[in-house]
Structures are given as structure tokens and as C-alpha cells.
């Protein structure tokens, strides 16, 4: 009986203290949160996905028959250019990093040659024009000597979301196509799927 009473009064003291804290909390500001905090909860597309997909895609593209067909017929390495990879997903995916990952994996394979993209080319042409006026005869690079690409790599990133309550199924599908610039033939289609089950917590402290 006595014990019960003291427990109860202790509880009351705690509640009173909580109320006191809350009154104080109104005037003083408490915690600071990092704005750049990374959320692993969200399960969004990240650098790991980008690297995984690009590496697997490149491994696949170099194993396929188009590569041997081309080298046999032309007796040289194919020159490839990366065109647009369209983001059709529900996330603000930075497609540029994905494209950079693909380019890096392709160049490092040593099996294909790479040609600068159209925006890069424009900048380089400006530089050549400038060289024409200002560079010395023996270092000047002539115009009209650019290497044309044989194939263009294009693609898209798609998502399908299925959600129910706190569970969400995220399905990413990356499609890449290699198109022959000479005759618009599609010589290779690559597809990589990533499935993520995101379960959100219902409670936090």
C-alpha cells in the first residue's frame, strides 16, 4: 500500500518534470539536424545501383556477337558514342553519373574506342578554330580529321512502384540499346532489373 503510493507520487513527479521541460522547450531551441543526412530508408537509386548496372551492362555488350562481327569485317575496334539515357523513373536520378559509369567501364575494357559526345565535340571544335589562328604550324590540328562513331549507345531508366501501407516494391529497369550509325540497325539490347523491397518503420522513439 505504501509502496504503491510512493510509486504513484514518483510517477507524478516525472510527469510534472515532463511538463516543466515542455514549457522550457518553447523558448529554447533544441537539436540541430544535418541537412545533408543520407537516408537509407528510402531505398532510392544510388551510386551502388549505378555502378552495378553499368558494369554488368558493359560486360554483356562486349560478349555479344556484334563485337566480333564488326572487328572481323572492319579489322579494327568499333568506335562508340554514348547518346541520351532518358530518365523515365519516378526519381530525380542523375543520369550523367550513370552515363559516366558506362563510359568508364567501356573505355577501361580496352575493346572499344570512344568518341566525344556532341557537346564535348562542340567545345573541341571551338578550340581547333582557336588553334587555327593562334597555334604554331607544327602543333596545329587540322579540321575535318575527326573520327566518326560506328555505334551509338542509347537507353532509358524506368521504374514501377507497387505500394501497400508501409511496404513498397520498387522495380528499376535499365534498357540500353546499341544502334549502328551506318544503317540504324539495333545490334544489341541490354536490360538490367533491380528489385527492392522497402519496408518503412511504423514507429520511432
Amino acid at each position: 500500500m505504501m509502496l504503491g503510493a510512493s510509486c504513484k507520487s514518483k510517477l507524478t513527479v516525472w510527469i510534472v518534470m515532463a511538463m516543466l521541460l515542455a514549457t522550457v522547450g518553447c523558448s529554447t531551441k533544441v537539436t540541430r539536424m544535418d541537412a545533408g543526412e543520407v537516408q537509407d530508408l528510402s531505398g532510392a537509386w544510388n551510386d551502388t545501383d549505378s555502378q552495378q548496372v553499368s558494369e554488368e551492362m558493359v560486360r554483356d555488350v562486349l560478349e555479344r556477337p556484334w563485337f566480333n562481327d564488326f572487328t572481323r569485317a572492319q579489322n579494327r575496334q568499333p568506335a562508340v558514342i554514348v547518346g541520351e539515357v532518358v530518365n523515365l523513373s519516378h526519381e530525380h536520378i542523375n543520369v550523367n553519373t550513370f552515363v559516366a559509369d558506362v563510359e568508364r567501364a567501356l573505355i577501361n575494357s580496352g575493346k572499344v574506342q570512344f568518341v566525344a559526345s556532341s557537346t564535348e565535340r562542340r567545345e573541341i571544335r571551338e578550340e581547333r578554330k582557336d588553334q587555327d589562328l593562334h597555334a604554331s604550324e607544327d602543333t596545329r590540328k587540322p579540321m575535318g580529321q575527326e573520327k566518326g562513331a560506328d555505334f551509338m549507345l542509347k537507353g532509358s531508366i524506368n521504374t514501377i512502384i507497387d505500394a501497400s501501407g508501409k511496404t513498397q516494391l520498387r522495380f528499376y529497369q535499365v534498357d540500353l540499346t546499341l544502334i549502328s550509325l551506318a544503317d540504324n540497325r539495333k545490334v544489341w539490347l541490354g536490360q538490367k532489373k533491380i528489385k527492392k523491397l522497402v519496408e518503412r518503420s511504423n514507429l520511432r522513439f
Partner: protein
Amino acid sequence: MRYGCLAACALLLGALSGCATYSNSFGAVQRSLAAQNYDDALQELEKQADTKTDRVLYLLNKGTVLRMKRDFSGSNAALEAAKAEMARLYAVSISENTLSYIVNDATVSYAGDDYERVLVHLYMALNYLELGQLAEARVEALQADISLRELAESIPGSKFTEDALTRYLSGMIYEELGEWSDAMIAYRKAYQAYRKYQANYATEIPDMLKLDLVRLATRQGLKKEAEGYRREFGVMSAQEEEGALPEQGGELVFVLSNGLAPIKREHIVAASGPQPAVVMGASGDGRRRAAAPVFVNIALPYYESRPAEVLKARVSISGKRTDTQLMENIDAIARASLDARMPAITARSIARAVSKVAIQQSVDRIGRNNDNDLAVELLGSLFVRVAAIATERADTRSWLTLPANVQMARVAVPPGRYTVTVELLGDGERVIAAREYADVVISEQRKTYLTQHWVPRPVKPEGVRK
């Protein structure tokens, strides 16, 4: 007599201490916004940057003000952070909710009302559209779709399960990207949502949507559906031709964010004064005294509309004039949302009042049982009473920089560089303000988005406690 004095002290202290509710601190921001001093408003908002429970609101307001300043990338960064914070707050906090039953509802982190969660996507989409990043705007349209699906699933009976304007804008984005069937679906959903808006918020189906439905249904070969819309809306073929975009033309889409969303105020519903004196015997020790009166109050929020001076905008471009149409009545949506939440808010307030009564009575009892000094006993009793009243505040938090309503006008014009004049019209078409936008570029078969947010001056001095 002693208790009368005590009561007076408690009330006085209660009025002096405690803190202003969230909405009361907004007056300075609104004054800066009305004067178009966006930097001042941002500085004022920065004061709330460190709050733990209101971080979502800080980010939402910052995003909206940066938009008004036409810093669309900055606005998107803030709104994206708000989205992440809202996602984090999806999980219900045990500690915050426990505290809310003792202190007040504002101890719970604000995770955004349903309509606010959807409007984040709308405003981010508009930001991207003004930046000319159509693909990114499409991402927002997809995210809005996910949010809306989630809403419809979690609260089936709710009035707000579809956001008509967000659906309509999604349709416009898909159409511009040439994704015709997605656009058709979005327009249909917008149409269904507007039918609900008609019933719930007295918002009519905009004429431009009617024309879009007929045009796109015809284009997709959905003859029956197109015929149905024609009959229902009474759309004449002349109107259709007028609304149709010339093949080579572009279009100006002007979006007016008009006024400010309603603001929540607090009102004290019940203040319980001294209860009839009850003779309380503490285990018959002979010290019989009347119980100290218990003080509780119930503070509930209500919405106060902010007066809207501007009724519509008139957009002039290359000799063509068009008036804006009401697309979304945020004022009505916010009010309906609070109405729907009111029973739960009231129930929590009553539960809180009960726990506060219990605390006061048990502190009194402890004081009496402990044979303390009378002064100490009174101090304890006084303290809990002050705390009980000072902490009972209504939760008046909401996204205050949202407009009261959103209006839109679309004008088809040939490609070129134009000066756009926007006149804001009040009662009887009186021009309240005019603004010129120079060098607006209209491209072939593209939509050029232009947005403006009109904030009226606060009518009465704010920051006064009710």
C-alpha cells in the same frame, strides 16, 4: 480568499509565460512578402531553422519564398529536403506522442497535412517547368501519383484523395512529352477530381480541361468518349478550333498563386474555474480543508481565411488577353481537412485535460500527505496549475506560405520573344497591381510556364495573442 489569489496568480502567469503559437510568429514574414522583400522574409524564416518539431514547415516555407524570389533551383533543394523529412516522419514517434497527451499537440513533429504532401510535388513540378526541365517535372508528376495512390489507400473516406490541379498539370507535362495515353489518363483523373471538387469545395471544372479532354480523346481515336465529353460540356466545334494549338505554335501557361492559405488560430473552448469545494479528508488526520481548485483549459485550432483582394489576373501577350481561371481552392481544401481532423484533435485535448486534472490533484495530495510547510505545498500546487494552463496550446501549424487559391491561364501564340503583362484584378475589375515580364521566349510546340505569387499585406497587426 487564498485560493482566489492563487487563481489570479496562476492565470496571470499563464498569460505571461508560455509561448506564442506557431501561427502568431508569421506576421513579420507576411509583411516582408507583401512588400516583396524576399530576403527579409528568408532571414525571418531562418530563425526557425533549428526547431526540431517544425523543420518540415521551415523547409516548406523556405522553398515557397525562394520560388517567389524566382530562385527555382534553391526552392527545389529546400522542398526536396522537406520531402525527405516528411518521409522520415512517416514513422510515428512514441516519445512525442506520449508527450502530446500531457503537454500539447505541438510536441509532435509536423509531418505535413495530406494536401500539403501532394502540393510539394505540384510546386516542385512548377519549379522544374519554369527552369525548362520537362523530364524532371515528369518525375514530380510520377511522385505525386504515388503520394495520391497512398492517400487513397490509407484514408478511403477522406474528401481529399485526389488533387485535381496536380493531375491536370501532370497531364500537360505528359502531353508536351508526347506521351499521349499517359496524358489522357491524367486528364481523366483530373476530371474526376474536379467533379469531387465541385461537390466539396465549390470549384468548377475549368474550361481548358474540357477542351483538353475532347481534343485528346479525339486524337487518341476514343470517339465515344470524346462525344460524351462534347455532350456533357456543351463544347462547340468553334470552341474546339479556338482552343486547338496551331501546329507551329507554342503556348504560354501562366499560373497565379493568389493570396495566402488560411491561418490556424487558437481558441480556448473551456476554462474550468474553481470546482465546488469538496471536503477532502486525508486519512482522517484532522486537517480538513477544501480542495484546491483545479485549472484546465482546452485550446483548439480553427482556420481564419486571409482576405483575398485579387480575384483574378489578366494576361496580355502580343495583343491577346486572357483571364485566369480558378484551378484549386486551397483555402477550402485546408478548411475541410481541419474539419475532418477536429474530432481527433478534440478527443486528444479532453484526454489531456483529464490527465492535467489528475496531476494537479495528486500534487495537492502529496503536498498534504508530506506534512510540509504550507508555503512549499502551495508552491507545488501553484506550479502545476501554471504549467497546466501555460502548456495547453492549440497546434496552429500549417504551411502558411501556400496561396489561398491557384489560378491558370493558357494562351496559344506563335514562337518568338514576347513581353507579357499581368494585371491583377480586384472587385469590379479594378487593377490592383500590374507586372511586366520581358523576354518571355515561346518555342515551337512547347509550353512556356510563368508563375507569380501575389501576397496581400496583413490587414490587422498580427502577433497579438487571442
